[in-house]
């Protein structure tokens, strides 16, 4: 019930259009019935050989209803579909706005393949909500009333019988379909989502599948998912068949009963013989009003499932919330971290266990340590993807929670571990960082990232399309693009998380030198486990198991007996052997 109410709330903005569509729908059916009724009247009257003048009204009526029916239906279809698409656009945007604050914290438990199924498939399922679920009952109601009144004009008995059959075909069949259709409907939505998710796996993971010879195995899995979908569809078809048969039966039976009842009325003189054909044909035509109702019930179930899934995701509380009136963040902000603690939900050990440091504007700081020591987590916290339960992060003297998330993130130029490239041209990927950047700025950033020459070697240069997830670029090239992007943001502070992870040592040196130049005068947090190029850092923090175990400059730490020195020696073993 609640879901229906929320879905209806989406329609409220365009209620006038909806009302118009319903009216048009009812009028269309009215025209349809009237066409046949008038034609029957025409012929029946003509059989009595009256003057032609008496026939004129019927003739005009027939022609009029013939035309109006088509025109009315056309108008009704356009209006209702227009409403539907508006509704859909609203739902899509509403959904995106609802989930946008949730990423990336919440997304770990959902697969984007699944998420895509939610958005595309479920929203497309909701496409049916207005046209096939909401409108038909309303139209039927109006049409039924009209038909009853019409029939009653000849004999109340006929109106009652017809109404009974109409309700049986309408409500009775609908109830039957709802009852029987719940299971198949749910199975349909679920199996379709599952199939789509498996398809995404099979296509994105194709290289791995092929190499390990599991392509066939995954293919079997897909076939299973497909048979599940087909089983659900078969059940649906059986239901539709039953429904279709009963529909035809009831319509025929209804008209038959009207005829059966009308005949004695004519014999007994209570009804004019001329009207016998009229009543029979009108009864036949009137079932058009209720023929969509059972189908509406089927669609309703699927719609509710889809809506339920959408609401479930959209209603999740975001991890991080903006304050009602965020403070404004200056361009150069001092960062101060005091006694920071953080544990991922569900983890037993804390990832950060009491971290403190100062990063004033212009200071270049490195954060090193073994994998899993918590370095990337610290970056996430600085970027406000999570909120720390204990300890504080201050920017420009105020708690980070006083600022809007977007402002905080815009202040940092970030290179993360797994750079994501969108399916768009290289230029567009770069422009994401700074939509108003000119070509000069883009090229300068790429030169600093040692990427410009490579782009020059591509036949389409900056217009080259990055394949999905930038797959056509090698790992190192993708990384350098991410670096160029970060440089383009022209931020006050930089956070680099393993920026040279996929680069060879020569390129690594070049990039580090260039980065040093580009970030001069601005704050820099350099996260790495490669101890390369750290000689110029103002301070190096060594992180181990969530704690800072050493602090100092490179020169100082290299001579101290500690983790830093150990890491240094391990890394450079290649020279000593």
């Amino acid at each position, binding site marked *: 019930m609640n879901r229906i109410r929320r879905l209806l709330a989406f329609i409220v903005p365009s209620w006038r259009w909806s009302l118009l569509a319903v009216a048009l729908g009812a009028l269309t059916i009215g025209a349809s019935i009237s*066409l046949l009724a008038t034609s029957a009247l025409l*012929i029946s009257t003509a*059989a009595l050989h*009256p003057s032609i003048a008496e026939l004129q009204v*019927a003739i005009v009526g027939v*022609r009029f209803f013939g*035309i109006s029916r*088509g*025109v009315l239906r056309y108008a009704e279809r356009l209006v209702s*579909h227009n409403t539907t698409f508006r509704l859909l*656009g609203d739902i899509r*945007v509403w959904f*995106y706005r609802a989930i946008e604050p949730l*990423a990336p914290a919440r*997304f*770990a*438990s959902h*697969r984007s*393949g699944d*998420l*895509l199924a939610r958005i*595309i498939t479920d929203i497309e399922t909701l496409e049916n909500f207005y046209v096939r679920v909401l409108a038909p009952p309303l139209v039927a109601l109006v049409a039924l009333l009209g038909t009853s009144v019409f029939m009653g004009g000849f004999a109340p008995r006929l109106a009652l019988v017809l109404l009974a059959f109409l309700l049986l075909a309408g409500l009775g069949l609908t109830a039957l379909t709802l009852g029987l259709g719940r299971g198949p409907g749910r199975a349909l939505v679920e199996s*379709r989502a599952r199939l789509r998710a498996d398809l995404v796996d099979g*296509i994105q993971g*194709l*290289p*791995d599948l092929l*190499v*390990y*010879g*599991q392509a066939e195995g995954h*293919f079997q899995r897909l076939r299973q998912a497909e*048979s599940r979908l087909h089983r659900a569809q078969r059940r649906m*078809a059986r239901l539709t*068949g039953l429904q279709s048969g009963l*529909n035809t039966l009831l319509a025929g039976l209804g008209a*038959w009963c009207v*005829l059966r009842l009308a*005949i004695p009325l004519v014999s007994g003189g209570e009804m004019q*013989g*001329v009207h016998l054909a009229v009543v*029979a044909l009108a009864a036949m035509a009137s079932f058009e009003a209720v023929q969509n109702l059972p189908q509406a019930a089927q669609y309703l179930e699927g719609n509710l499932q889809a809506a339920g899934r959408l609401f479930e995701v959209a209603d999740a509380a975001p991890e991080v919330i903006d304050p009602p009136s965020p403070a404004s963040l200056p361009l150069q902000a001092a960062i101060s971290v005091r006694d920071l603690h953080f544990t991922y939900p569900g983890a037993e*050990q804390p990832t950060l266990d009491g971290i403190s440091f100062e990063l004033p504007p212009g200071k270049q700081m490195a954060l090193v340590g*073994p994998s899993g020591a918590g370095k990337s987590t610290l970056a996430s916290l600085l*970027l406000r993807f999570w909120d720390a339960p204990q300890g504080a992060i201050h920017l420009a003297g105020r708690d980070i929670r006083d600022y809007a998330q977007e402002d905080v993130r815009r202040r940092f130029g970030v290179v*993360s*571990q797994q750079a*994501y490239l969108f399916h768009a041209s290289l230029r567009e990927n770069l422009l994401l960082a700074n939509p108003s950047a000119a070509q000069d700025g883009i090229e300068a950033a790429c030169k600093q990232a040692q990427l410009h020459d*490579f782009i020059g070697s591509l*036949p389409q240069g900056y217009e080259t399309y990055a394949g*999905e997830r930038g*797959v056509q670029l090698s790992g190192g090239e993708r990384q*350098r693009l991410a670096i160029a992007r970060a440089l383009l943001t022209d931020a006050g502070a930089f956070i680099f998380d*393993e920026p040279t992870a996929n680069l060879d*040592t020569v390129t690594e040196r070049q990039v580090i030198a260039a980065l040093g130049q580009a970030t001069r005068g601005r704050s820099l947090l350099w996260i790495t*486990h490669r101890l390369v190029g750290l000689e110029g850092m103002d301070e190096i923090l060594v992180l181990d198991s969530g704690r800072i175990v050493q602090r100092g400059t490179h020169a100082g730490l290299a001579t101290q007996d500690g983790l830093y020195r150990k*890491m240094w020696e*391990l890394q*450079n073993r*290649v020279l000593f052997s």
Partner: protein
Amino acid sequence: MFSRLLRLARSRRLALGSTVALGWVSGLLAILQAWFLSRTIDRVFLGGAALQDVLPMLAVLLAALALRAAASGGMELTANAVALAVKSELRSRLLQRLSRLGPAFTGGERTGELSAAALEGVEALDAYFSQYLPQAALAAFIPLSVLLLVFPLDPLTGVVFLLTAPLIPFFMYLIGRTAENLTRRQYQVLGRLSAYLLDVLQGLATLKLLGQSRDQAGNIRQASDRFRDVTLGVLRVTFLSALTLELLGALSTAIVAVEIGLRLLEGNISFQPALFILVLAPDFYQPLRALGLRFHAGMSGMAAARRIYEILDTPLPVQPPAACPTPARGRTQSGICFERVSFSYPSRDLPALQDVSLEIPPGSLTALVGATGAGKSTLAALLLRFIEPDGGLITVDGQPLAEILPDEWRAGLAWVPQSPYLFNDTLGANLRLSKPGASHAEVGRALAMAGLEDFVASLPQGLDTPLGERGARLSGGQAQRIAIARAFLRDAPLLILDEPTSSLDPALESQLNAAIRQLAFGRTTLVIAHRLNTVREAARIYVLDGGQVAESGDHASLLQRNGLYAGLVTAQA
């Protein structure tokens, strides 16, 4: 296109035929109904009969409508059977094709678009086969039957029917062509909408980083609006066709009614046949109208099918060999040879590999180093049979690699890629990718070798922990270690490692290097790296530069040469 689609239904010929037959029977029953209805009314209205007199006819009427109901229900079932069989067939063909086209094809395409083709595209054919095709057959048979009956009764009406009926397919054809183009565009937009949304969702973290995530809502609205406009454009036209058809039907009924009425008036026709024709008129036009209604669903199916057949018709990169004496998989006696191999990616100017000649001797460790983009991963792709060389020859024990079936070849190798794919499944299932039947002990050993024991022990569900999409909960290093564990589990004679330790810190790197050393012992191994710790002990090191082999030798001799390799080593200090 149509004939290809029809051929898909061949396996369900019976069901397809039954559908048409049932529809036709249903139509004949409708004619029967109309006959008895008109007779009954005639006898009561003009003949003054009482209820008892017409009871037998009423009984027949009842039977006819009951049978008609059964027929219409049965049609749904048979039509559905056809549609399901066709979809199943087409989908599996599509997926097999994609698998055989390989990452070279699917990598460049968008996953969203391809999944849209495989799911919604195939589903679009459901309407084509379960609704459109049967209706098309009915639209041919039933009006013909009605026509045959009506002509002897009233030639004039017959002529009206005859003249108006062909107008309907004619208009359908005219408007259908325009709608088809529009539908195709609509389908493309849907595919792009899917891919775009997938892109946005997968990169949502990046968008948030760049502060661009909120703006995407606007882009989504724009894309949705565009979709709406295009679809409405299609619908406006397809509804126009429905309008025309309905007008034709309704107006024709009106015309027939008036014409018959006038003739009745003049006494040129009697009441019963007149009423019979009137009752029949809707049934004459109904199949044609229904066809018009289902037309646009049919056209969507066609458009989807076109895209799918595009993929099915894409030529395969690797031609299976004529005769193939299968060598001991991956195990080689004299090694793998690259002789003047060249390869260029279609989207790039410069060749990725140019005249590369090198040898991978059996049972030893060969390393490939070089600057980023020097061609190392391309070489790996050639060995993995994802691509085939443009020029030159790759041989295994003297036999051209191209003569060995890719699947056979790959069965003998293990691969650790730069970005391993983690499936939405348990951790254990992801590990067992390389060897589904692995025992618990084997998996445990692989975990230990890859340094994952502690990590797995820390997880409350252990190996049964489900992994988020693309292993979202795992760090880059952990994902890489899973890939390494897979390779250990596989225990294959040929081992290819592409940057196996690039995301790892020095401590872990050295631990894994020890493990890799152990794994590579006695195996033919190719390591691609720029972490030089890993390649130090290689029997042979090739230095690639700009797609060509610049230097080769072992670590000591290369250092002495003081060339590129030496430069890379000193840069690391």
